[in-house]
């Protein structure tokens, strides 16, 4: 179906905007319907999230925007948000009577374009069309920039990439630019031109996404690019632009998953009843081996002994576990830490390492260097990819208890066993998380070989952790609240953090370009802190469901680092449970960055999303 902005509605845009409203409260549903109708929008109401998803899937391109409540009985609003974002790529507005910063933060992190507080005013609803429009513009721009990045990457990767298939044709770029120019002048006609130039929206079905992921894995995260993916996927009607934008989202999703995992872990894994202490042991050991390697990228350190992880029991039933497990594993092969080129799939862990390595190598280069950030993402993706090779079968089925695991990211092959690693975070009581997390980061810095595993040890080696701190600050910076200073060990990771930041920025920009952080009036600096605290302390009961956990996961570059004050605390201070709990989110963020396991987490989560 053509974009809704094509023809008949052009003249009266935004009248006729097709809105899907999801809210379990019948009274609010009536009110919202009336309000939206008064704005001359076309309204469809839904009392259940599942029904909403069905409607969206049945009528692909049948809606322009989704407005959903956060608290719903059958499915968490955030989860719905993720699904919609990934599968349908529609702007989603969240609503809630709860305006707590942490909740709003969560919404933004999950990709919400806006977060409205109930009671909702008509004027707030009147302006929701801007999100639709903005998204269209950004999508076009992103594709354009993405392609240029790809072009750069191709060049960087060497001439072997230069075969016809991969070359950016001059006309491709020109046409993109043209599109962008047109885009810039907003008027109905241009708008529709842009939309149609963009092609009909593609709905990424489970099968399609599976092909996509498979292609990504085959290519290798570090080399992944829309064109390559497109060629491998062999789907005739799919365009490079479609793949490009999906790739972006995928990367964001992965990073989000990782973050959630981290966070979850920090919570001490209340939910992880699945993990027995031995799992933790396994995790710990894995971690130990993982971390220590210093890495300047040497992935060798990662050696996660995937074997160890595998031994852990990934309890399939808990979704979280699955995801978690994924990360840790398979990295059977020693990854070469060398900078970011982890050419093959085996580098599952390398991807993580790649990250590190790329950072190490690029140091400041990464900052603001889009290609690098892309690479970073690639490495993340790579990790997932490598997991696949490792052969852990990840059974995503267990991934989401609520969602039938039809989608199997076999590619990722996250095994439950992998869970342990990731679980690690979960399994630990609050305090431990930060410790091990940091260690991982140390990889890059090589700082903390000893840190490895100590899930419950908050006071672990701080050395490594201090390094990771900078990442946190970076992360927070990313959000605009510059957390900075508390982290003293920034110097060691300057490049890293920066790259992290850049990466995040990019991803954030791309993924959340439509989210009006400002609209939400979030004061990032303060909000993040409280949000983080809330998250850590489980105010949002993250462990309530798998989804929640993932959501908590470590957002790369997310503002989790807000609590700099906390971060400043040396890890040794983390022994103090209070500190630990407060910090974990931050740490996790930083850790995440280098956390080798992440990729697997990503993949698992990623898969999980599509199971619905």
């Amino acid at each position, binding site marked *: 179906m053509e974009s809704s902005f094509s023809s008949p509605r052009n003249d009266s845009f935004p009248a006729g905007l097709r809105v899907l409203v999801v809210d*379990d*409260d019948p009274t609010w549903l009536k009110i919202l319907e*009336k309000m939206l109708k*008064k704005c001359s929008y076309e309204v469809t109401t839904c009392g259940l999230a599942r029904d909403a998803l069905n409607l969206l899937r049945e009528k692909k391109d049948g809606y322009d925007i989704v407005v959903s409540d956060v*608290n719903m009985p059958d499915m968490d609003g955030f989860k719905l948000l993720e699904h919609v974002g990934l599968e349908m790529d529609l702007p989603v507005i969240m609503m*809630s009577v709860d305006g707590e910063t942490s909740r709003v933060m969560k919404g933004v992190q999950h990709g919400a374009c806006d977060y409205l507080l*109930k*009671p909702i005013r*008509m004027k707030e609803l009147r302006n929701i069309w801007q999100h639709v429009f903005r998204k269209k513009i950004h999508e076009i721009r992103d594709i354009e920039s993405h392609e240029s990045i790809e072009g750069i990457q191709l060049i960087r990767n060497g001439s072997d990439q230069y075969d016809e298939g991969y070359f950016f044709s001059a006309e491709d770029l020109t046409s993109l630019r043209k599109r962008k120019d047109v885009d810039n002048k907003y008027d109905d006609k241009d708008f529709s031109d842009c939309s149609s130039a963009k092609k009909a929206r593609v709905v990424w079905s489970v099968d399609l996404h599976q092909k996509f992921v498979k292609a990504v894995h085959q290519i290798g995260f570090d080399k992944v690019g829309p064109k390559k993916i497109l060629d491998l996927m062999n789907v005739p009607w799919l365009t490079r632009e479609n793949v490009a934008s999906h790739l972006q989202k995928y990367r964001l999703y992965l990073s989000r998953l990782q973050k959630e995992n981290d966070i979850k872990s920090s919570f001490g894994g209340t939910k992880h009843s699945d993990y027995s202490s031995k799992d933790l042991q396994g995790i710990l050991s894995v971690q130990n081996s993982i971390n220590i390697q210093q890495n300047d990228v040497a992935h060798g350190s990662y050696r996660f002994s995937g074997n160890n992880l595998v031994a852990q029991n990934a309890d399939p039933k808990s979704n979280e576990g699955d995801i978690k497990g994924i990360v840790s594993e398979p990295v059977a092969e020693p990854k070469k830490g060398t900078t970011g080129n982890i050419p093959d799939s085996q580098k599952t862990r390398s991807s993580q390492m790649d990250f590190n390595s790329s950072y190490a190598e690029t140091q400041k280069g990464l900052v603001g260097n889009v290609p690098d950030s892309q690479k970073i993402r690639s490495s993340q993706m790579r990790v997932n990819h490598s997991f696949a090779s490792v052969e852990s079968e990840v059974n995503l089925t267990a991934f989401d208890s609520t969602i039938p695991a039809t989608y199997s990211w076999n590619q990722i092959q996250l095994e439950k066993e992998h869970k342990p690693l990731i679980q690690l975070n979960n399994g630990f009581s609050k305090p431990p998380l930060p410790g091990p997390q940091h260690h991982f980061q140390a990889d890059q810095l090589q700082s903390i070989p000893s840190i490895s595993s100590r899930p419950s040890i908050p006071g672990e080696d701080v050395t490594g952790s201090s390094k990771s701190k900078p990442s946190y600050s970076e992360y927070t910076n990313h959000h605009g609240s510059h957390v900075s200073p508390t982290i003293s060990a920034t110097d060691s990771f300057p490049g890293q953090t920066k790259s992290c930041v850049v990466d995040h920025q990019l991803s954030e920009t791309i993924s959340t370009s439509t989210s009006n952080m400002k609209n939400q009036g979030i004061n990032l600096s303060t909000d993040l802190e409280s949000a983080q605290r809330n998250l850590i302390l489980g105010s949002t009961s993250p462990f309530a469901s798998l989804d929640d956990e993932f959501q908590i996961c470590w957002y790369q570059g997310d503002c989790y680092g807000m609590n700099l004050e906390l971060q400043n605390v040396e890890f040794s201070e983390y022994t103090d449970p209070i500190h630990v709990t407060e910090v974990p989110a931050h740490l996790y963020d930083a850790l995440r960055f280098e956390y080798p396991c992440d990729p697997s987490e990503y993949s698992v989560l990623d898969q999980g999303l599509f199971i619905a």
Partner: protein
Amino acid sequence: MEKNQRQVRLMRQSLFDQGFLDEQFIQLEELQDDANPNFVEEIATSYYQDSSRSLQTIELALEKTPHDFNKLDGYMHQFKGSSSSIGAKKVKAECQQFREYCKAGNGEGCMRTFQALKREHATLKKRLEAYFQLARQAGPIETACRPK
């Protein structure tokens, strides 16, 4: 008729002045139009149907000890959201108080607040019913005026 209209106006004004209703109620009034001439009353009816059920659920949950504060908080969160739909100001205030007690793990406080909440809920219902009845008799003229 005139007298009725004045009465309706006064009744409405007092609902705001006495803190029973807030801005949201006016939003609803503004939504009322020819297509939905009794919109506000319909919404209020829908709210009372829904909220009565919710109150029963919460009441049952409160009878179970030890109190599951998370659950209670969840219920109340939803109830608060629902009450915000018609602008039930006092009811919302009690909801908030209840949630505070939940967070503090104060079962006693929760139960006390719940009783207060039920009272406010019932009082508002009576006031609104009287108001709508009179408004129907007096004619739709007085309805969407913002109280000063």
